[in-house]
């Protein structure tokens, strides 16, 4: 998403839409659900609207999701951060691993200069990562979160195209 021209469709942000007039079902006045860092399985269901999503937990119940493309390939992952026994996760790190690319640090810096919301970096193990962190502590509504996840996938695709055009 290029800074000069694509903010119109930039939907990622750190914070959520409001939880207005909550009813007992957890729906706001416009019928949106508020989800928190304790709702990892629900977040996985929201991600399912974007792409086929796997949900797993590790031995200490830290959740993890993997979102797939229509062809079954891994699109990106969601790493839940700062959880306690699988609950009260503080953030969701959306991460796309592009593996080894022939991009220089200068090129990654140019991408970060040029595009909003996501950041690209070399992970020290030979892979290029595109990442966006979404804070969950104050709750986010499902519509907003779906758009955030969908837009991250879009940004990952933009990076892939940008990388290909720049020799990656």
């Amino acid at each position, binding site marked *: 998403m290029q800074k000069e021209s694509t903010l119109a469709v*930039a939907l990622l*942000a750190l*914070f*959520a839409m409001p939880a207005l007039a909550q009813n007992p079902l957890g729906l706001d006045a416009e019928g949106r659900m508020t989800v928190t860092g304790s709702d990892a399985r629900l977040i996985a269901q929201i991600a399912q609207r974007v792409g086929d999503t796997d949900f797993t937990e590790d031995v200490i119940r830290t959740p993890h999701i993997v979102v797939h493309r229509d062809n079954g390939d891994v699109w990106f992952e969601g790493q839940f951060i700062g959880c306690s026994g699988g609950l009260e996760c503080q953030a969701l790190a959306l991460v796309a691993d592009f593996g080894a690319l022939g991009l220089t*640090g200068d090129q990654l*810096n140019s991408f970060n200069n040029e595009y*909003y919301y996501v950041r690209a970096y070399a992970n020290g193990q030979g892979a290029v990562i595109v990442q966006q962190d979404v804070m969950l502590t*104050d709750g986010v509504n499902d519509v907003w979160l779906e758009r955030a996840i969908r837009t991250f996938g879009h940004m990952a695709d933009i990076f892939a195209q940008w990388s290909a055009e720049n020799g990656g």
Partner: protein
Amino acid sequence: MLKQLMLGAAFVAATAVSAQAQTIIDGSQVDEILNIARGYGSATLEKQSNGDPRITGKVDGVTYQVYLMNCTNNTNCEDLNFYAGFLDNKQTLDVINAWNRDKRFGKAYLDSDLDAVIESDVNLEKGVTRENLDAAFNLWTLILEQYTTYIGYK
């Protein structure tokens, strides 16, 4: 500071305001955004070259800007771009990459003059609660504090 520490501070800030009454703020309410900024230090309202609003603030001696982006008629703006550039602060790409790898929420890069920059973006489309936006400013102050230390600015 490690990721978990930064997240911990942000968590405290976010939860501390979560029980307050919710008021919705969108990108047309520049004065409200300015008022929130003034809760963290001095802040003045300016205009960008295209007429869109911009807030210039200072937190603990560090100057930053909040660019209101994607505005209609210089008013209804959909995004906030928190920005701080550090003139003549030269860092290596490895140092910048390490920030982006190891920290959450702030995005670091070198600008065209190879000066260190930190940014963070917030989407205001359809509005956010005042508490959310306040938490975003609070998080931004934490990012600024850590980044200025990281690059040796302070």
